[in-house]
């Protein structure tokens, strides 16, 4: 029981960076733009968060700076895929390559340094609930921000007018345009804000989770987030569930390593990636062949207004 609670609390912590990345991507994809640059954005976010925290001693400044850096980086993808109507798959990959390179390049001087990250704050009241309190309410503040973000995005997409507009833009931009919505503007907003949120996920890794910067430290989490968007059928609530599931596998694997298991470490390290494939297959089969339920109908397709007339 004690061990389970520990693993589950660790699952929440290691799932949190993935939650931010997944929510950011859901926001972007709901507007019809496919962003495969998450891995690069997370790395740039992790580096920016670390660097700014290191120089200012203020982790929150670092996280805020990471958000802005994510927006700046993803603006490249936004410009190429929205204004220039370039291929979104290739542009996203370019973003990952560029972000990986830039973060490794600029991050070299920070290797080996440490920062003081966010401390843990138990939520008064809620943390005293047996089991649940220890799993969910004895973390740093950024974890609570992620809870709020899940709820907010859920409410935003389902119950607000702006959320409706966003979904219209992602599904049928032509109709949205006819309704008087500025498709280009909405897509830019969704892509930029989404990129910023993804970068916060990256910053969580360096500023909160490890307190250090290492090259390539996102280790595929950005890609796992891309897969989780499909797993979650673009739903913020299910995204959180998926992220904790993966966080759980990571935490479990780390605990097994620490306990000095006789299973070779590479085989343990494989688990999260293997699970991603298995879950993706399972979820795709369940939704049946063909078009995925919940996928924005015009995801990944450039929109050109003039052609409609």
């Amino acid at each position: 029981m004690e061990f389970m609670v520990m693993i589950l609390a660790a699952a929440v912590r290691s799932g949190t960076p993935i939650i931010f990345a997944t929510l950011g991507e859901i926001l972007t994809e709901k507007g019809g733009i496919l962003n495969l640059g998450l891995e690069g954005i997370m790395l740039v976010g992790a580096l920016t968060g670390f660097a700014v925290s290191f120089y200012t001693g203020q982790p929150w400044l670092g996280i805020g700076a990471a958000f802005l850096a994510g927006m700046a980086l993803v603006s490249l993808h936004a410009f190429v895929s929205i204004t220039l109507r370039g291929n979104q798959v290739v542009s996203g990959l370019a973003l990952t390559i560029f972000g990986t390179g830039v973060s490794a390049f600029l991050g070299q001087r920070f290797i080996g340094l440490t920062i003081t990250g966010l401390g843990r704050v138990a939520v008064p009241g809620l943390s005293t609930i047996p089991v649940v309190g220890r799993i969910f309410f004895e973390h740093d503040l950024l974890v609570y921000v992620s809870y709020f973000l899940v709820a907010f995005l859920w409410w935003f997409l389902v119950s607000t007018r702006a959320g409706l507009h966003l979904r219209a833009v992602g599904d049928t931009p032509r109709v949205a345009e006819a309704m008087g919505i500025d498709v280009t503007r909405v897509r830019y907003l969704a892509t930029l804000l989404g990129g910023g949120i993804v970068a916060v996920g990256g910053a969580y890794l360096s500023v909160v989770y490890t307190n250090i910067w290492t090259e390539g430290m996102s280790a595929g989490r950005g890609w796992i987030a891309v897969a989780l968007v499909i797993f979650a059928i673009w739903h913020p609530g299910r995204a959180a569930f998926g992220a904790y599931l993966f966080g759980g596998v990571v935490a479990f694997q780390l605990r097994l390593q620490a306990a000095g298991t006789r299973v070779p470490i590479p085989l343990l390290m494989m688990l999260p990636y293997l699970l991603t494939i298995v879950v993706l297959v399972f979820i795709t089969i369940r939704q049946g062949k063909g078009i995925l339920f919940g996928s924005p109908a015009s995801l990944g397709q450039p929109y050109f207004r003039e052609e409609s007339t």
Partner: protein
Amino acid sequence: MSRMLRVEKRLTQTVWQDVFVTLLSLVLALLFGAVFLRALGVSPWEAYSEMFRASMGDFFGVTETIGKATPIMIAGVGVLLAFKMSVWNIGAAGQAFIGALAATTAVRYFFVDNRFVMFWIMLALVVVTAGSWSAIAGYLKARWNVNEIITTLMLNYIALQILYYFVYGPWRDPASLGFPMTAPFPLAARLPFLGETRIHIGLILAVILAIVFWYVFRSTRWGYEIRVMGQSPRTARFAGMNYGKNVVLVMFLSGAIAGIAGMGEIAGLAGRLQPGFTADYGYTAIIVAWLARLNPLAIPLVSFLIGALQVGGETLQIVMRLPLASTLVLQGLVLFFVLGGEFFRFYRIRLVREVSD
């Protein structure tokens, strides 16, 4: 009367436009790279001339570049094949790891002390293993429409861990002083080099593959079908083409070829299995295929340029103490500019007068 910019679709794209846009994109990427270097207090002129000198300045540099370009060329042809069908194989790196593992398996368990025979044994095992590895993603896509971008990527990370398992575990050379590497391959398991260079016969294989697939896409029925399926799976289905079967086949071939790139790296250059030899090949192969505008014949030229970028990057690392990742920065920029340039291939912007009433 007012003037405004209008975006119009071009009706045709010419080869000349392709070449011009690609070259202009490369130049712009280098210019932006220069701004980046300058911002870091490095003289871009010095950096670029150093890169050029090291990679193309003399005979040795050129052979180094060609040696570097060889696996990129092979993997580039591999992913190009999948991209033709609009199947996004992002897993060339993992497929190369599996190819390297298969080649090592051949050396360890099926060794024949004859260079010619050994080459074919290795090649056969690599093709079957790496091909099947990537065909997993192809099968999942064909059968249930599972997103191949994610599966090929996850298979990358899994392949890397399998590689680690063997080089840190059962296959580690006891004489390696704890370094994760296998014992050196016997001479019969090494690929022959051309003269006194670091160019191995993988180069010839790469050029042959490029020509073969150029011919396949230009002049065969199957190549035509692949192109149709890439442009519109719906049309292909109505025309009675078997999309599913071809996804599996194309992924098999694509992965098998990427696997050969991995085999070349260890049986050619390294002469033993060790990790870290193809860290960015997956991405690089994608850049190469895209820069070549999916034309197999352009792959050797583009690979040479990217090879030069990498040799140059290594020199920068040694001479100017810049991180190797600076080449990734440049590669990313090149890709962005080429993509941006596509816009001007397909659209033109005209200044038009509008009469207001």
